[in-house]
């Protein structure tokens, strides 16, 4: 198979045709932070955290196809600061109270905030008024925590391919809604998957909580990106 040569922050890399920048970088041990992306689902480019700079232009590494000879900037300080700004925007744009969240330690937004050493966001908290909706007999959706990544929209489908979740409204009023009739038909397994696919604690399975204690969860053990990244020396 033909190889595509490219570089990330000066490091020579090789990728395969049909790969995105993010996928090719990962195969070369380069971690490009991302949040809305989920392996196996079509990338939506909604969180913008995987933004890289190629030839002075900004693009989402999760949707941008790799091309021959490109020079990718991934860790330039100004770029990293803008990514951090996206993480901070997600924090101030919702209501994220990590200490009381079922997803703490498994939450990718929290894990990225740790990676970017976010202490206090530069932006003022918006404290939007959001609801917590019972969504069928198995799920609970806490809109305070939703970051509109669209993972649930793409993943949670009925047998005949209908969407259980979907985007509603536009602008800052945008929210992820659910078809309650279809949500009522979700199996236990589907409900668990829906919760596991949610990068934050917005989709929660009812009647179970804190089964794994905080301190023993995914990102309590190893920081986000460490599965990809060649250890930095």
């Amino acid at each position: 198979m033909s190889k595509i040569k490219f570089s990330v922050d000066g490091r020579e890399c090789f990728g395969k045709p049909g790969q995105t920048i993010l996928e090719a970088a990962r195969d070369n041990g380069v971690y490009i932070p991302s949040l809305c992306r989920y392996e196996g689902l079509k990338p939506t480019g909604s969180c913008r955290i995987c933004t890289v700079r190629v030839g002075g232009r900004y693009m989402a590494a999760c949707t941008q196809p790799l091309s021959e000879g490109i020079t990718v900037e991934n860790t330039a300080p100004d770029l990293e600061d803008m990514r951090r700004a996206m993480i901070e925007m997600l924090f101030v744009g919702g209501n994220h109270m990590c200490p009381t969240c079922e997803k703490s330690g498994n939450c990718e937004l929290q894990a990225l905030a740790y990676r970017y050493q976010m202490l206090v966001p530069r932006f003022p908290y918006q404290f939007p008024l959001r609801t917590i909706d019972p969504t069928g007999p198995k799920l609970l959706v806490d809109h305070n925590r939703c970051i509109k990544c669209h993972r649930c929209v793409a993943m949670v489908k009925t047998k005949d391919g209908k969407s259980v979740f979907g985007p509603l409204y536009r602008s800052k009023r945008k929210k992820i809604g659910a078809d309650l009739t279809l949500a009522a038909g979700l199996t236990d397994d589907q409900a668990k998957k829906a919760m596991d696919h949610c990068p934050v604690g917005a989709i929660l399975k009812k009647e179970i909580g804190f089964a794994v204690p905080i301190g023993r969860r995914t990102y309590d053990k190893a920081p986000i990106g460490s599965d990809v990244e060649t250890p930095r020396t």
Partner: protein
Amino acid sequence: MSTKAPLDSLLARHGKDPSGLIEILRDVQAALGSIPPEAVAKIAARLGLSRVDVEGVATFYHFFTARPAGTYAVYLNKNVVAEMKGRAEVARAFEKAAGCRFGETTADGLIGLHETSCIGMNDQEPSALINGVVFTRLTPARVRELVAGMKAGKETGKLVKKTGDGANQSRLVRAMVDNNIRKPGPVILAPFKSGAAVRKAVTWTPEDVVAEIKRSNLLGRGGAGFPTGLKWEFCGREACPPRYVVANADEGEPGTFKDRVILTELPHLLFEGMTIAGYAIGAREGILYLRAEYAYLKPRLEKVLADLRAQKLLGKAIAGKKGFAFDITIKLGAGAYVCGEESALLESAEGKRGAPRPRPPFPVQNGYLGLPTTVNNVETLCAAARILERGAGWFKTLGTPKSAGTKLLSVSGDCRKPGVYEVEFGLTINRLLEMAGGRDAQAVQVGGPSGTCVARGQFERRIGFEDLPTGGSIIVIGPQRDLFDVVRNFMDFFIEESCGWCTACRVGNTLLRQKFEKITSGKGTRQDLKEIEAWGKTIKAMSRCGLGQTSPNPILTTLLNFREKYEARVDATRDYVSTFDLEAAVRDAAAVTGQTLAEARHE
């Protein structure tokens, strides 16, 4: 009221293809005055969609409402030029006469008052759409008359007293809109004999047609300036027909209305341009995506299409060319600025939410229904037809070396002669202001809110891709205006029109607006000036589509060109100004406990 019977018969008139969802929702909204939950459920069942899919589309577009919009649904433009022309008094008159506030519907459900983004009538503001009918140059007295007519149960169309000029008088339009053509030009606003361009085009090979457009250096007239010939070439090269031609008639940039004039006076030229594009790329179908605000033109546009079919300029064997078949259908939007972005437009044309797609793949590869599609601006397609008729050489004699041809400018605001001007590229702002009667302007907004705010000292700058590119919106800002009011209006527009897909645009614009308010209310420091600039640049860099990539421009370009106005609002001697308002913080508590504010503050 039971809505069952009319809903069923209404749905029966439509097919079961989800790409027709917006047409169905438009019909339901028109018939029932809202899109109630039972309609959502029935539509979802009929189209094989989930309810949340239908609700997602119904809540995306401005002209769809979950609650009754009123038997007479009034949509008053909230554009900045409307503000300049007395919108506030008109709005108050509506509220007083109707007896409800904006955002509400009267208790009897008769009149609903709503605000809306630019409706393309900047040359005749304040204006409003009432049940889709355009009312221009509103005054408080006229508003009282209109509301009296509504209370008397008059048909909306009958409330129009006098029609405008030209085809606005046509039986199929009957709109009180004026064309306001102030300066005709050689390319678009010129005499054109229907068929002249397409008859010539079909004597050439499609490749030669593309080559001629490439030779003309025609650049996209929507503002982005992509070479039209190249777009057609890319699209024609894509292997899998069918291919599509889409005319983007969703001019939503506040201040632009030039396509309104083309659609009113020169629809045959536009359709001919689409037909030539179809011939060039090998498409059999074209779609005119018409913004909802211009739905009043649709009956006449349909008639023009029928006439063209009768003249063998559409349909099979066009202009006698065997094997060349092409036809055009019209699809209406439902109120969303972002649908002017070509990939969002395609989503909308497919009956979905108007959220832009990731690019690449570009529409020439993956367009309407995933098929190769060329999306061109209305004015671009008209220019293409004229280039075929008169030749690329002729076209290039007009304009500048890098910006060939002419541009239609929609001029509005503080000038004596607002309207449409066809000018050669390279024209200075000074010369334009002279023509339009706005020489005392303090600033000119070129390219609408997403463009550049040009200061008085820079009026020798030129319209063109090498200096000031524009889709055509020119807003003249007179010396009496507070420039910050303009910026505020533009920012509110972007906040409202964001599709909400990506973080930077959905969250960032509101944060930027708050920072702007902090500075302009006198509570900013020099640090805030640095931060607002940095935040604006971050939003531009991190946004997914052209909306977010330009939404900080009202702030960034005024910060660049009117720095002194911002500097004057910050206290350079202080590093910190508290924004905490104690009075506001204790107001609710004081009201609940029956204390005075002083008592609540423990004074």
